[in-house]
């Protein structure tokens, strides 16, 4: 068995120490209990504090367990909460882009559409909330597969069907697409799922920087692309929207 990482072992010991007996401990108590130099103990405590696992009392300077530990057991974000937070931003994205907007989360082996804003052109449209989209070919799905490890394993283990000539199916090619997605911060689908339809999507993160969903615009390829390229102002609008929703969920600026 490989050697364990010493600083993680020390961090775990600190959490156990703070969990038992006296609730609040000073830096010197913690350092001496664990036989550490104060500087070493302080470095670990500061890291734990930054992650929210430890909190420091403002007046006494003593340490206690952080609220983040309580949240570990119940971490999932309610999708209806996600929709409520996304509402104004997705409305604005639809208005500024002139295209329909979808918000998707991972559900089983696909993307579950949890919010849909119509294209603002007064045409007859049907609400697609509750519909499923494929993970490997849509922009929403690629974003989820690129950022969420569970979605990633689902898409690699599942069948990747060729919907059009442009669908990327082979595992290595698909991994390449995900690498590009992570590098650029958004995913695209130009006629890989439906002929004549393109979409652009970007990831939504929560306050723990966990990927909780994807938001994107979908529309006719002629409108989303110019000279064979996705229009950069649309990409910017989608990413702005994803960042705004993430901020609303408490994620820091990035």
């Amino acid at each position, binding site marked *: 068995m490989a050697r364990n990482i010493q600083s993680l072992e020390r961090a775990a010991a600190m959490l156990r120490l703070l969990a038992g007996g006296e609730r609040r401990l000073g830096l010197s108590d913690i350092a001496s209990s664990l036989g550490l130099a104060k500087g070493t103990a302080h470095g670990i405590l500061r890291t734990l504090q930054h992650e929210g696992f430890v909190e420091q009392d403002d007046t006494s300077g003593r340490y206690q367990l952080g609220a983040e530990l309580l949240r570990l057991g119940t971490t999932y974000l309610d999708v209806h909460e996600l929709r*409520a937070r996304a509402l104004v931003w997705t*409305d604005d994205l*639809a208005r*500024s882009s002139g295209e329909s907007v979808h918000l998707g989360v991972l559900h089983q082996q696909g993307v579950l559409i949890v919010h849909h804003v*119509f294209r603002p052109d*007064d045409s007859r449209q049907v609400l697609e909330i509750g519909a499923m989209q494929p993970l490997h070919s849509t922009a929403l799905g690629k974003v989820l597969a690129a950022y969420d490890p569970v979605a990633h394993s689902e898409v690699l283990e599942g069948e990747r069907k060729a919907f059009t000539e442009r669908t990327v199916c082979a595992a290595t090619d698909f991994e390449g697409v995900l690498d590009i997605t992570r590098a650029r911060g958004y995913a695209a689908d130009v006629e890989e799922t439906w002929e004549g339809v393109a979409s652009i999507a970007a990831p939504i993160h929560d306050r723990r920087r966990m990927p909780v969903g994807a938001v994107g615009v979908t529309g006719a390829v002629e409108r989303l692309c110019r000279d064979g390229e996705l229009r950069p102002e649309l990409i910017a609008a989608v990413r702005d929207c994803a960042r705004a929703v993430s901020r609303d969920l408490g994620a820091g600026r990035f």
Partner: protein
Amino acid sequence: MTDAHTAGPFIAAIDQGTTSSRCIVFDRDGRIVSVDQKEHEQIFPKPGWVEHNATEIWTNVQEVVAGAIEKAGITRDDIKAIGITNQRETTLLWDKNTGEPVHNAIVWQDTRTDALCKELGRNVGQDRFRRETGLPLASYFAGPKARWLLDNVEGLRERAEAGDILFGTMDTWVIWNLTGGVNGGHHVTDVTNASRTLLMNLHTLQWDEKIAESIGVPLSMLPEIRSSAEVYGEITGGKLGDLLGGIPVASALGDQQAALFGQTCFAEGEAKSTYGTGTFMLMNTGEKIINSYSGLLTTVGYRIGDDKPVYALEGSIAVTGSLVQWMRDQMGLISTAAEIETLALSVEDNGGAYFVPAFSGLFAPYWRSDARGVIAGLTRYVTKAHLARAVLEATAWQTREITDAMTKDSGVELAALKVDGGMTSNNLLMQTLSDFLDAPVVRPMVAETTCLGAAYAAGLAVGFWTSTDDLRANWRRAAEWTPRMDADIRDREYKSWLKAVERTMGWLEDEN
């Protein structure tokens, strides 16, 4: 792609609401450019009494206007007009020489005038002034609140009779201050706010001398009644005068009427419903003043400049969003309001349970103060998820009862319902609403319809927009739910709901 908020000009709108004051700057497409908001204190001197500090409110209004302008990064030259929408019926009296309120504002929810209203009904009852004003004698409305202040603030009646005291709802207070206050501020209100005082005659759109005398409010302290969209004056003096001096103050609408306007319900039969803590539904009835025999209110929808006034029927539901909050805070069955949908979706139906949240009696169309809340149809089978369904269905059925009353009074069938407010993010509720109404439910792209309505009216007054057709062109459908429920299931469920409603009545025995 229309670019994000590029160049002006813009219209600003102030929303002086029950819990906060806000200012939003809109562009020509009706898109939000910037928002600023500040809450004010809710003062509860006794059970049932609710007051606001009007000086605090005016300070906040100035701050949020300055804040929104700053956030938008624009100057006075970019703003063509400013409009106002406000919490309705909240009543203030102030000294016109000092600009100082003589008492806190009495908020619409305040029930201190219950006994006074009963007394004013004399042998006729609460409908004594309904034919002229469209309203029942109830503690919400402004006239009796003003009378209470005159009776209870020492020396006030003498000062009022000497002509030193001004009356106003919050639109009047904000406009008077914006246009100069003690230095020549304009003392005006608009027809929609005036229609909530119990003092205005709906037919003449003027103060009704006889009713004012009966209620005991001197005509001399009442503001001039103007249309909802015209230039009342210009921003003058004070902090805002430096920042925005000269900008026309060009609209005033009560909040629910502003939402009707913002939803562009300009044609007879068009209706909007705003889903918040409670729910307010208004239907445009055109130039017709429709007397309600089903417990609805008759009110002015809006009046643009010298055009003919447009009237509306109004129905309100006391408990909608607050029932979800109750499930969260008092019952602890959910941890956020949005989770009610998750819980409700974990079952197929209500499991036979019906929840009538008559927490403070039944409102329209029943008006029964002796009713209290009931959960009916309980069996061992019912889970908290079924109750979550019943909670959402309660909002939908109560909307159905109001639309039925509107159809009965007006003879106009509801073609589609335009919705706004926080609860419209609840997809299951919106689908249920469409199922129960058997009509499409439509959500517009701008959620801030109240502020938007005030901005629209101000923009029309100064020619920023030329017609209501211009405004209709701005309206965008964000989502539409269409009915999916079988008629026989709907009928059966409605019958069960009505049975549950019946069981709430007469719970309190000492009321009549």
